[in-house]
């Protein structure tokens, strides 16, 4: 039954496998779609989609697949057969634009009027092969710039059906490309482990399981066993850019912060903030209040060099903020003279360092890319994405 939906879903990036598809077939067979479109929509969604991040892609695909369904109150077997549409895959590629172009001309009032007419039509000739009212409403959605307001006008319970639900695309905000998933970050952070067991430590920890095992197999005569302690030895120093252009990435950075702090498997974790570039002081909070700060020198002299240093920032500032003396001159004679000097001091102190960048290299104009390039030359730089984080963590562990 409508196997092409499966392929369309897969083509749109949903990892639907045969297991789920068979479950759907079973569900249909058992009538779990309760013979309604809304039911069919829900049945498909809860069996085929396993993450709210994919709901939006599913909604779009569903709309697309069912756009020309003849309107009927019930989803009968005939209709299900009818839905077997091999044309949809070829159809799909160009549908969007054509429909969008066609619809460009409709105002919201017109959409509303069309809906009303359609509704009237349908109540008059119930099964008269009138086409699905959502077609027009839906195609409005195809043009993603238009809000789905139009179709809500129907408002009555009769219209509470699948196409509207899907058409609302409530889950737009959950799409992977714009949600940040601390959990995924956490998964990536799990790479940042170095077990002391790997380091050659003497076996000092009492091994309950093996003691019991060996004692038991020894006929009850005690055999004490020890093992190497296994704990994560990784210590992390996280320095995050805050404010200004970084405000765009506030959520992303906060997701990273939460993932790092929730990870809880580091031996030690220090987090400080700076603005644009670390200078003489590091701040405890992203608000960068000087009463809540410590001298960068303190970090440099007190945290041992085996801390893994993770810098997070867009590396985009006015060149003088990185190279000029106004911001960065330290108090010590012969000490750092500018932001870049501070960065080099940090780099010199901490052997394992990466820079995570939430922003891509600016490709417009030279101005902002200057500091970006200089910093990227100094530090291994990775995008602040799940993949980038994973790469970065591997880099931090490389010996």
């Amino acid at each position, binding site marked *: 039954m409508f196997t092409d939906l499966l392929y369309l879903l897969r083509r749109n990036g949903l990892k639907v496998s045969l297991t789920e598809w068979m479950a759907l077939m079973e*569900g249909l067979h058992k009538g779990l779609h309760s013979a309604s479109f809304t039911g069919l929509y829900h049945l498909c969604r809860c069996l085929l989609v396993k993450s709210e991040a994919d709901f939006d892609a599913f909604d779009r695909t569903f709309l697309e697949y069912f756009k020309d369904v003849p309107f009927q109150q019930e989803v009968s077997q005939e209709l299900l057969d009818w839905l077997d549409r091999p044309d949809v895959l070829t159809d799909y590629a160009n549908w969007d634009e054509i429909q969008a172009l066609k619809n460009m001309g409709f105002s919201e009032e017109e959409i509303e009027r069309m809906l009303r007419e359609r509704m009237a039509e349908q109540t008059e000739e119930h099964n008269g092969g009138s086409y699905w009212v959502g077609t027009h409403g839906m195609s409005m959605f195809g043009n993603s710039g238009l809000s789905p307001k139009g179709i809500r006008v129907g408002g009555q319970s009769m219209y509470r059906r699948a196409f509207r639900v899907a058409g609302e695309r409530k889950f737009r905000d959950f799409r992977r490309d714009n949600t940040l998933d*601390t959990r995924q970050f956490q998964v990536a952070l799990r790479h940042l482990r170095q077990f002391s067991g790997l380091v050659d430590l003497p076996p000092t920890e009492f091994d309950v399981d093996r003691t019991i095992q060996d004692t038991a197999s020894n006929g009850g005569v005690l055999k004490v066993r020890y093992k190497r302690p296994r704990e994560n030895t990784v210590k992390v120093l996280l320095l995050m850019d805050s404010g200004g252009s970084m405000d765009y990435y506030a959520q992303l950075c906060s997701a990273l912060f939460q993932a790092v702090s929730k990870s809880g498997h580091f031996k030690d974790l220090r987090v400080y903030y700076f603005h644009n570039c670390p200078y003489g002081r590091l701040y405890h909070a992203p608000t960068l209040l000087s009463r809540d700060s410590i001298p960068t020198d303190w970090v440099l002299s007190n945290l041992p060099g085996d801390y893994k240093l993770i810098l997070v920032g867009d590396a985009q500032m006015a060149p003088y903020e990185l190279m000029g003396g106004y911001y960065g001159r330290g108090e010590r004679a012969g000490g750092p003279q500018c932001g870049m000097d501070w960065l080099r001091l940090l780099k010199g102190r901490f052997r394992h360092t990466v820079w995570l960048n939430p922003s891509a290299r600016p490709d417009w104009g030279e101005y902002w890319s200057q500091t970006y390039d200089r910093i990227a030359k100094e530090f291994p730089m990775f995008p602040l994405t799940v993949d980038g984080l994973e790469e970065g963590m591997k880099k931090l562990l490389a010996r």
Partner: protein
Amino acid sequence: MKEFRGSQNYVASEELLRAANIAMVLQKPLLIKGEPGTGKTMLAEAIAQALGKELIIWNIKSTTKAQDGLYVYDVVQRLYDSQFGGQGVDDIEKYVKLGKLGEAFTSQEQAILLIDEIDKADLEFPNDLLWELDRMEFHIPETGRTVKARHRPVVIITSNAEKELPDAFLRRCVFHYIAFPDRELMEEIVRVHYPDIDERLLAQVLEAFYKIRQLPQIKKKPSTSEIVDWIQALQHGGVDVRRIVKEVPYLGVLLKKNEDMDVLRRQWR
């Protein structure tokens, strides 16, 4: 099979009801995700109550192993008994204690098994349960016994997170995401808890609540359980309704992080 239609003290959206029934009919685990406090745990309680079945809760912690849910062989006790010449040391069965999954399998009647917060455990945890959840049986090598479900339990699994659950596991589940309740649904939920709530109070509370949730800088957004507690605090304190939106009294009930409270104090007007 009886259908789940919601319960007296749990407000379920239509979608949630459908998903629950689909899971029961297809005999697949129902995986529930959603923000904290959106009633994931409570759903299982409501289903159990509505269907009049026993609820068995397996709370997952970071140290939980799949094996813990099946059975634990208490070797230490056995060793101890043997050293002191206790009775029945030969009877291994005596030292095998069933876990929550085992309990659900051996229950006299069909039970509801809630595996709560599965994402807390190790990443591989769900994979270790695939076979048992599919076949609804497991083997105890120590005694040679196979524990087989008398009645397939209804399995409900909750998770706060996303993506970390392995694909093989996800493929077997019916999935539902509890979207954060909109105002309408929230009103219903609140009324379930406070049937006689003052209308003006309710309106003010909802206004303040959704306004706070909209502040982008708030890290831990207040959820359903917080609004429920907040109303109680407000009622108990006899707060003047007009002050609610303006002053947000008992803020600590809504926001649990100091930084969030600071944000609110700075931004509220």
